[in-house]
């Protein structure tokens, strides 16, 4: 049994939490998964809490997932999207957030294009901060929900082999996943073209592989990341078609492996690039479970953070 409180007031990244925290979150998420499968999917735990969802960067799934998690916990929420706000009039991050906080907000869920924005904010405002993605730095709730999904499917994360395939260089999901899986005792490999693998990634203690077939034959779970064209300022590979041929996962490749592996994807999928449609919709894919688990895991995070008060 894990400890019964988190060690931190904020969730800024997997870097800042320990194994006990992760176990506690995953255990609590199990309870919430049961809650969201009831006819009445709501519990009153956070009814006296107001949460601001501040998104300085576009997001559909994460934002929806957080909103749903907040509503299922009975929190009051305010939404704020940078594109339709005073940020475009030149307001600073602290000013924006402080203005929102003067409306008596207890927690802030923030996505921001700059790495470390959450950490910076946590030092300057009173509210509790949940990082919903900061640039190419961390995306802790995604890593937690991925770990939860693996645990749910395989019974445990400890000792499992997970390969993260694709654009590691621009991916906050990759960093958070590596840290989270390692803290849970899994072996991690990254796989992709040399241009998309950061130079010193091996210093994190992960294996590096450039041959997709070898990587897939090694692993129990393959997490296929999206090619983030919007973050790529230069060309990292000749064409999407060539990428798909070298690093795309299709049914033929999947079936030619020695064992049945689990396929994950954090979404949104570029069908036909990272994975083909028949793989995404196959029985080995747990992509839609990941989405469902996302709500349960985020409920657990918000609930446990709320319990931290003082």
């Amino acid at each position, binding site marked *: 049994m894990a400890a019964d409180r988190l060690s931190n007031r904020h969730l800024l990244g997997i870097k800042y939490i320990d194994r006990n925290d992760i176990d506690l979150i995953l255990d609590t998420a199990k309870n919430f998964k049961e809650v969201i499968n009831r006819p009445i999917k709501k519990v009153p735990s956070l009814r006296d809490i107001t949460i601001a969802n501040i998104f300085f960067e576009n997001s559909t799934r994460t934002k929806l997932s957080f909103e749903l998690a907040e509503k299922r916990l009975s929190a009051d929420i305010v939404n704020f999207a940078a594109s339709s706000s005073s940020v475009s009039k030149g307001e600073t991050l602290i000013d924006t957030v402080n203005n929102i906080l003067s409306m008596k907000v207890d927690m802030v869920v923030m996505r921001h294009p700059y790495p470390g924005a959450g950490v910076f904010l946590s030092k300057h405002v009173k509210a509790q901060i949940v990082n919903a993605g900061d640039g190419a730095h961390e995306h802790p709730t995604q890593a937690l929900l991925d770990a939860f999904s693996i645990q749910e499917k395989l019974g445990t994360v400890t000792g499992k082999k997970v390969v993260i395939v694709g654009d590691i260089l621009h991916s906050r999901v990759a960093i958070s996943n590596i840290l989270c899986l390692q803290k849970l005792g899994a072996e991690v490999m990254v796989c992709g073209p040399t241009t998309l693998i950061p130079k010193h990634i091996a210093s994190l203690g992960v294996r590096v592989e450039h041959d997709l077939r070898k990587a897939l034959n090694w692993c129990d779970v393959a997490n296929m990341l999206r090619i983030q064209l919007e973050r790529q300022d230069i060309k990292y590979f000749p064409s999407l078609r060539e990428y798909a041929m070298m690093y795309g996962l299709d049914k033929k490749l999947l079936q030619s492996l020695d064992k049945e592996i689990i396929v994950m994807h954090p979404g949104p999928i570029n069908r036909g690039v990272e994975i083909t449609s028949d793989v995404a919709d196959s029985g080995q894919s747990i992509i839609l479970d990941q989405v469902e688990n996302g709500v349960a895991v985020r409920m657990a995070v918000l609930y446990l953070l709320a*319990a931290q008060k003082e």
Partner: protein
Amino acid sequence: MQKRTLLDGQKIQITIKRLCRQLIENHDDFKDTVLIGIQPRGIYFADRIRTELQEILPEARILKGNLDITFFRDDFRRKDSIVTASSNSIDFIIEDKKVVLIDDVLWTGRTIRAAMDALLAYGRPRKVELLVLIDRRFSRQLPIEPDYIGHRVDTLNHQQVRVSWNETDQEDKIVLISESTK
């Protein structure tokens, strides 16, 4: 620290038998009645009640579920509140059923309030009754009274009633613990 045994294993068994007879008096063959044990400690007691009922009524199909009330507590974000939840397992519909809530110790009544709240997520019961093994009377903070009582005790606020079960603590026993007050 002083310890006083309130009930030993044999007395607990006699009490359980008596409570089951009382339940049968009101619920016949349990066709429309379900038992719900409250997590984490009420479920062992509920199991005992169910086993005993099943022995007396071998033909009856007695449904029993476990209900966790953690997310419905009214002391969340207050000092010392319990945060970690236990599992719910209610795999039947309670809509229009008679529900017997079962817990080991009734003290302030707040757990039962939360349980009634939590129960609503599973439907609208026709009737809800409360069965407790130990009633710490005169210490209620809410207008809640049990329908079936194993044993009544008078306690002070700083005292603690500890129920041990064979399943988890290797013996059936109920003790009243008084911390020495200065």
